[in-house]
């Protein structure tokens, strides 16, 4: 069964690492839905959130292939882990004097924010799951979406566990079953 898998990947913050990760997905024929990258609480280490459509076997192969990249520190498939997934969008929507009030009400309902007001348009900022953002866009579409930008998915697991800290500590791993993978250089 093909699902969207979400990976949290810690990588060394070095030139070309993003290229290495992106190139891996391209040449192995895995299709990235979204990829975000940013700094972490630790200097010199970046964190990627990668969303990919894959079946279970491919999902395991993706994890194994990521580990073959020397600059990758840890990989965690958090698809089934309790976690918070967020996307951020900024949407420029046409809003005349007549329609502005209605649009503002929708913004309110979705708990989004208006971050810029111009005579003919508004810029709306929304943070939430991709579903929620999709819904807002859907209801805004009749007013005229002029421009839009989305960050792609970022994700973090719930609770105190740190994925990066625990990923390196597994002492045994199996591939023929569900529980994780083991890795070579």
């Amino acid at each position, binding site marked *: 069964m093909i699902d969207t898998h979400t990976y949290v990947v810690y990588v060394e913050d070095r*030139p*070309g690492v993003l*290229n*290495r990760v992106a*190139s891996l997905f391209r*040449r192995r024929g895995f299709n990235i839905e979204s990829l975000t990258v940013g700094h972490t609480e630790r200097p010199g280490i970046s964190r990627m959130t990668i969303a990919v459509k894959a079946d279970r*076997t491919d999902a*395991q*192969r993706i994890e*194994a*292939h990521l*580990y*073959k*990249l*020397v600059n990758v*520190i*840890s990989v965690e498939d958090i698809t089934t882990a309790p976690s918070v997934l967020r996307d951020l969008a900024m949407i420029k929507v046409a809003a005349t004097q007549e329609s502005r009030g209605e649009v503002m009400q929708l913004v309110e309902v979705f708990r989004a924010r208006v971050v810029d007001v111009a005579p003919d348009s508004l810029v709306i900022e929304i943070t939430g799951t991709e579903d929620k953002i999709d819904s807002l866009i859907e209801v805004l579409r009749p007013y005229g979406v002029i421009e839009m930008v989305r960050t792609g998915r970022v994700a973090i697991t719930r609770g105190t566990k740190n994925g990066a800290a625990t*990923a*390196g*500590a*597994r*002492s*045994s*791993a*199996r*591939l*023929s079953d569900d529980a*994780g*993978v*083991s*890795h*070579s*250089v």
Partner: protein
Amino acid sequence: MKLTGAQILWECLVREGVSTVFGYPGGAILPAYDAMLDYPIRHVLVRHEQGATHMADGYARASGKVGVAVATSGPGATNMVTGIATAMMDSSPIVCITGQVGSHLIGYDAFQETDITGVTLPITKHNYLVTRPEDIAPAIREAVYIAAHGRPGPVLIDITKDAQQRSCELDWDGAVPRPHKRPERRPHPDDYARALALIDQAKRPLILGGHGIMLSGAMKVVREFAERAHIPVAMTLLGIGGFPASHPLNLGMMGMHGEAWVNTAIQEADLLLAFGMRFDDRVTGNLKTYAPNAKKVHIEIDPAEINKNVRVDVAIVGDLRNVLEELLPHVAEGDRSEWLDWIASLKGDSAVRDIQNMPDSGHLYAAHVVHDLWHATDGSALVVTDVGQHQMWEAQYYKHEHPRSLITSGGLGTMGFALPAAIGAKIARPDAEVWAVVGDGGFQMTMAELGTIAQERLDINIAIINNGYLGMVRQWQEFFYERRYAATPLLNPDFAKLAAAYGLTGATVMKRPDVIPAVQAARAHRGTVVIDFQVEQEDSVFPMVPAGADLHAMIRRPSASPIVETSADP
């Protein structure tokens, strides 16, 4: 004491145990070449940088040590691409060092600038762009480590000219490879138990032996394992030599041109034990019908290979030797005589089709040449083959008893590999009797390296299996394209004269009785001999599983009909 980046490069390579490099100088690598003269390094000047990478590859495969190739920026670096991809596909540990334009010029399309780390990103295990002398030692030490550890492979280090020229302190200890935090590679005990249970229950088990046997040094334990459990062993092309050919449990090669009884046995097996192999499409044929009755146990160092092509029942990720050494004491002693007898009964059908057993028509066949070469060299030569028909005939008819006695380009199928790889192999093992067995097509791709052989005064023997065609492509055209021989006939030079032009010895053989004397003369001769074996032009490699076909759907050599007639010269 401060050293230049170039000095650090050689200092580190020497300390890492490198004594020989294969290379070609040029502008951006000149500082390194200048510094090289002060270090105990044997530099082999190649005729083309592709040759340097194949030599490093041959060196690595023959010795198990890391091979090193050096080239300049731009075209020097891009010429390495084929050799790097070859090493990547066949898990061969090489380190390629390229010069790069000065760091201030990078990105400005400077003369001989190429983004070689970008170009080689998908065909290296890892690569580095080094722009500061301080980063050279860490890059070298880590590159050597990465190339040789885990699943081996190529690593490239691109060093800017200014990084070679500038100076800094060499911090050897500080340059120790960074510890890569990885989940530990220890198989789960349950998987051992499940594998052992499957082995215990199996009535028709088969070991599929791959390149991993050599890479992990598992020859002894594989043999003990097979003998104890009484399980026959089939080899992949790169597995050949990992299990002695003369051993009663060795069935021979599997796959597209594997022995018919091997492929039949795979299809009938109830258990496949895959040892350090990756179920390449040339091995499996149609995946949907591959070994339909067999449970599969995969022992493999690279987790990315698990369930890639063939879904397995038990996967044990780890170094093959370590895993087998853990398993061996728990393997039940078996008696699979019934299964072995059944497989042996299949061989009669192949024997009547074997070219060796057919009446002598007076024609010289490639299989004759390889068979006689095997005979004349007591099966003890280190054979390096190119790619195509001769490669398959060699795999079928040269019986390899020892690991690292067959070096060939398997995964990438790189024509032009044999001659330079044989040079690397000979330099790695000067006492070995090295034979390059090469087709007339592939030989001409890299035959400029005869110049390297002459300059280095090497003693390599070269058997050109000359059928005047790009033979394997011609065979496909015969089978699948109605004998429309598009662009496969070759007009060849006189190879014996070509050898003579380089100051080497040449010979031409056209009749079967002349094969063994020519081989013996070459063996007795000090120095390289090129033998042009002019063989039957339109012979084909049998059996053949057409690409993507079921493994048991082999095209066989007709048993009763006379041998294919010799065609007119092209």
